[in-house]
């Protein structure tokens, strides 16, 4: 049996499924390979929102806004329902200095045309009747800049819609080698447990596992797993109307924010940033944190305690709601907090589309569309040269 494809996409998470869908949509004979099941890695061990207000001003936010709007278009176009919903987001500021720092961020985003605004204590308590009454204020992002989706349904949707366009999928696939042309170093084929697959183009969308695929073609991809944990509540009444994040989230995500919170050593050590959302299934998701722990995704009891401790500060009514499950996943972290969406000069036909850290769900539609432009040799919808792999090649 001869397996020949125009393009092979590796990894069936939020990025790989989107990339494969967009390539199939452009008429390429596309194969999606996945070492486990669809959405079995980071894309099913995450939260369920896409935001602009957790992005750095500039290209980071621009990609977020593009993706959020494009999600709405896809939700209308697809038969497969991935639970798209617009909602608002509140970055809650415990103290005045946090409020000032968030105001500064708001001003920068306003200059670029994003309608974020500050809300003071009284308005915050009206918007969120269950929040602690002494929270200083919040940064509000209207539904134009915040959405909710089911992250794994996004992956299934891209797969099912892609299949209609002729895309093929092989799950539980082990990749044992990638063969390159001896003279040109260009991609020729992939060896798998299903046999040899011939292709001139490979897109590495393996997220935190992308470095392993990179090794098969002799390149170093600087992505590290950054762990996060979420807690799931029993079904309960709607405790929050918006997606809630504490301003400290920015500090847990980015370096160089010079600000100290009054929190316990446990919360500090666990790098906790409280966030809360109410899902379509009427559960609460309570998070979260960022830690480097290798590929270990077991839940740590210290993390669970620290998240709950921090959650009590903002939503004391959580004390009587039950937690039914915890889960941890790993984000594909890149040192400059921008993904790699790029071809690779030294290996013609090899592309990288990985390293979205905690933004993979949010950036999924945007990234898939741009990767299709790159593969087709077209210009991207706007300048994304800062996502080029060459920034890491010395």
């Amino acid at each position, binding site marked *: 049996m001869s397996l020949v494809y125009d393009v092979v996409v590796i990894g069936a998470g939020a990025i790989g499924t989107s990339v494969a869908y967009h390539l199939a949509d452009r008429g390429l004979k596309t194969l999606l390979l996945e070492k486990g099941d669809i959405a079995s890695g980071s894309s099913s061990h995450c939260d369920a929102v896409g935001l602009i207000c957790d992005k750095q001003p500039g290209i980071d936010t621009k990609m977020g806004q593009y993706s959020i709007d494009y999600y709405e278009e896809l939700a209308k176009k697809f038969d497969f329902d991935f639970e798209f919903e617009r909602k608002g987001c509140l970055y809650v500021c415990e103290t005045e200095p946090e409020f000032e720092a968030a105001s500064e961020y708001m001003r920068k985003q306003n200059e670029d045309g994003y309608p974020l605004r500050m809300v003071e204590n009284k308005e915050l308590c009206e918007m969120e009747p269950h929040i602690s009454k002494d929270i200083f204020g919040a940064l509000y992002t209207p539904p134009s800049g915040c959405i909710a989706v089911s992250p794994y349904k996004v992956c299934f949707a891209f797969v099912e819609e892609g299949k209609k366009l002729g895309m093929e999928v092989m799950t539980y696939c082990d990749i044992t080698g990638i063969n390159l042309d001896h003279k040109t170093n260009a991609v020729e084929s992939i060896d798998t447990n299903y046999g040899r697959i011939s292709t001139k183009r490979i897109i590495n969308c393996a997220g935190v596992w992308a470095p392993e695929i990179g090794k098969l073609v002799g390149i170093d991809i600087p992505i590290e797993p950054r762990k996060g944990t979420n807690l799931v509540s029993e079904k309960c009444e709607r405790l929050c109307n918006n997606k809630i994040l504490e301003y400290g989230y920015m500090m847990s995500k980015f370096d160089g924010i010079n600000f100290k919170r009054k929190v316990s050593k446990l919360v500090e050590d666990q790098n906790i940033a409280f966030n809360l959302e109410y899902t379509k299934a009427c559960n609460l998701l309570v998070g979260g944190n960022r830690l480097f722990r290798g590929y270990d995704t077991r839940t740590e009891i210290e993390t669970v305690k620290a998240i709950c401790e921090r959650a009590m500060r903002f939503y004391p009514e959580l004390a009587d709601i039950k937690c*039914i499950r915890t889960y941890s996943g790993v984000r594909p972290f890149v040192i400059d907090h921008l993904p790699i969406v790029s071809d690779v000069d030294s290996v013609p036909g090899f592309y990288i589309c990985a390293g979205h850290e905690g933004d993979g769900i949010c950036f999924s539609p945007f990234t898939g569309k741009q990767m299709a432009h790159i593969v087709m040799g077209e210009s991207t919808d706007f300048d994304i040269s800062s996502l080029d792999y060459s920034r890491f090649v010395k």
Partner: protein
Amino acid sequence: MAEYFSDDMIVCRCEEVTVAEIKEAIRQGAKDVVGVKRRVRAGMGLCQGRTCEKMVQQILAQELGAKPWEVGTSSARPPIRPISFGDLANGVVE
């Protein structure tokens, strides 16, 4: 045993998932308990699959022609039983 299940029978009581929905998840590519859970929520509710997991395994085994122990289990995650966020916050961690 699975051959006696009718399609409209509810397997996961917490999330109200039927035999037909589980079969559809398998048709969409689910090969194990976690794959079914992710596609149709069987085992995602209050009891976390304590009641339905055995039946989901049997349906998987029947549909895929596999042995029940070949179709996996849900991942083990704390807590063992539902516990309030307040108790978790106040608990001692050693």
